[in-house]
C-alpha cells in the first residue's frame, strides 16, 4: 500500500509539472478510443473507416473542448449510417435532436457521458459509468447515462438492420423505419439497463453521502452488488442467461477500474495548476498558481459520545449539538426528552455567562 501511495504522489507531481502536455495526450487517447470504437462497430463507410481519419479527428479533438469530441463522434456516426441508408441517418439525426432538446440541453457539462456509455458498452465494461457517476455527480447524471444507453442500443439496432436489411429491401422507407422503431421500442434489455443504471447511481450516491469510515469503498461495493443483482434478476426475467457470465466479469473489471479511479481522484481533483494573465498600470503579470494542498484522502473521524456523560459535560455538549446536525446521530438525539434539551440550554447559558 505504501508503494502505491508513493506512486500516486509521484504521478501527481509529474502531472503538476507537465499538465500542459498530459492533458492533450489524454484527450487524444480518449478520442482515439472513441472514434475507433465507432468505426469498429458501425464502420459502413470505408472512406471514414481508416486509421488516418481516426488519427486526424483525434488530433483535432486533443486541442479542443471535450464537447467537440461529442459533436465529432455524432457526425462520424451519422456519416457511417448515411452511407448505409439515407432514411436511417435521418432517423438518427431526429433521435439525437430529441435527446438533445428534451434532456441533454439541461446537463451541458455531462455530455461526454452520453458518448462514454456506448463506447464502454462496446468495450464490455459499461458498469463503470453508473458507479463513478454515483460517486462524483448528483443523481441528475441519470439523464445523460440513460441517453447513452439509448444511443448504444440504437446503434445496435442499426447494425442489426444493416445485416438483415438485404432481405427486406432497403428502398421501402416506411417499412425500414417501422422496423427500427419497433426493435428499439421492444428492446427490453435497453429498458433494463436504464433502470439498473439509475438504481446504481442513486444507491452509490446515497451511500457515499453517509458518514462511516471507508465510505467510498462501501459505496463502490454497494454499486457492484446492486449492479450484479439488478442485471441478474433482469436477465433471468427476460430469459437472456447467456449474458450473465459476461455481465459478472464486466462488473468485476469495472469495479477494479472504479477503484483505480477513486485512488487518484481525491488528489487529482485539487492538483490542477492555474495559469492566469492580467495587468495593471505598471506591469503585465503572468501568474502560475500552484495549489498548496498536499493532504491525501481526508479521513472522516467519528467520535462516539455517550449520551449521559455528554449532558453532564458542557465542553462535549457542543459536539453533541454539532453531531445532531449530521444525520448519523439524529436518532440518538431524538431519544432525548424536551426536558433534557431545556437543561442543555440552561447549562449553555450558564457557560456563556461565566465567560
Amino acid at each position: 500500500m505504501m508503494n502505491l501511495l508513493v506512486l500516486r504522489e509521484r504521478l501527481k507531481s509529474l502531472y503538476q509539472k507537465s499538465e500542459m502536455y498530459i492533458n492533450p495526450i489524454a484527450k487524444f487517447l480518449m478520442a482515439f478510443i472513441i472514434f475507433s470504437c465507432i468505426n469498429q462497430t458501425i464502420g459502413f463507410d470505408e472512406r471514414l473507416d481508416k486509421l488516418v481519419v481516426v488519427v486526424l479527428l483525434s488530433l483535432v479533438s486533443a486541442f479542443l473542448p471535450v464537447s467537440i469530441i461529442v459533436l465529432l463522434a455524432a457526425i462520424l456516426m451519422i456519416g457511417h449510417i448515411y452511407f448505409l441508408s439515407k432514411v436511417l441517418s435521418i432517423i438518427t439525426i431526429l433521435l439525437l435532436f430529441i435527446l438533445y432538446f428534451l434532456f441533454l440541453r439541461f446537463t451541458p457539462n455531462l455530455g461526454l457521458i452520453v458518448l462514454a456509455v456506448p463506447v464502454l458498452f462496446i468495450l464490455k465494461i459499461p458498469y463503470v459509468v453508473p458507479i463513478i457517476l454515483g460517486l462524483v455527480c448528483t443523481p441528475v447524471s441519470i439523464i445523460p447515462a440513460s441517453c447513452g444507453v439509448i444511443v448504444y442500443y440504437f446503434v445496435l439496432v442499426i447494425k442489426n438492420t444493416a445485416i438483415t436489411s438485404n432481405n427486406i429491401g432497403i428502398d421501402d422507407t416506411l417499412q425500414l423505419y417501422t422496423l427500427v422503431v419497433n426493435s428499439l421500442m421492444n428492446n427490453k434489455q435497453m429498458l433494463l439497463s436504464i433502470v439498473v443504471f439509475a438504481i446504481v447511481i442513486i444507491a452509490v450516491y446515497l451511500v457515499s453521502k453517509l458518514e462511516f469510515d471507508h465510505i467510498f469503498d462501501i459505496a463502490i461495493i454497494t454499486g457492484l452488488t446492486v449492479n450484479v443483482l439488478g442485471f441478474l434478476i433482469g436477465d433471468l426475467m427476460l430469459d437472456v442467461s447467456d449474458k450473465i457470465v459476461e455481465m459478472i466479469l464486466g462488473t468485476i473489471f469495472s469495479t477494479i477500474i472504479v477503484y483505480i479511479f477513486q485512488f487518484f481522484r481525491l488528489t487529482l481533483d485539487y492538483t490542477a495548476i492555474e495559469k492566469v494573465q492580467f495587468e495593471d498600470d505598471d506591469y503585465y503579470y503572468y501568474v502560475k498558481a500552484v495549489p498548496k494542498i498536499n493532504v491525501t484522502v481526508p479521513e472522516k473521524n467519528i467520535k462516539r459520545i455517550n449520551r449521559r456523560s455528554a449532558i453532564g459535560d458542557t465542553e462535549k455538549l457542543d459536539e453533541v449539538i454539532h453531531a445532531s446536525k449530521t444525520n448519523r446521530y439524529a436518532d440518538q438525539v431524538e431519544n432525548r426528552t424536551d426536558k433534557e434539551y431545556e437543561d442543555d440550554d440552561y447549562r449553555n447559558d450558564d457557560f456563556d455567562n461565566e465567560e
Partner: protein
Amino acid sequence: MLNNNKIHVMTKLAMYEKNEGKKDIKLGKYYRTDYVRFHALKTIVSVTIGYLLILLMIVAYKAEYIISKAVTLDYKAIGTYVIGIYIILLAVYMIVSIIAYSIQYDSAKKRLVVYYKNLKLLRKLYKQEESEQK
C-alpha cells in the same frame, strides 16, 4: 515596485474570471426573476421542438394506419390528447427548470459577492498605493 498584496488579490480575481466567473458575471447582469424567466422561455422552446420531433416520428410510424383511416379518424380526440400531453410535459419541465435555475442563480450570486468584495479590496489597495506615492 511589486505589491504582493495586490498581486495576490488580482490573481484570485483572474482565476475566478477565467473559470466559473465567466458564466457568473454574465448572470450577474440579470435580476433573479429575469434570469429565471429567460431560461424558462428557452426551456419552453426546446421542449416544444423536442415534442414536435417526437410527434413527427410517431406520425411517420403510424403513417400507414393514418392514411388508410384518414377520413374516419376522430381528430378532435387526438388533438386534445396531443395538447394534453404537451401541457403536462411543459408543466413538469417548467417546475423543474424554475427550481434549478433559481438554485443556479443563488449559488452564482454567492460567488459574485466574494468577487465584488475582492474587487473593492483591490480598489482600496490601489488608493493606498497612490497615497503612498504622493
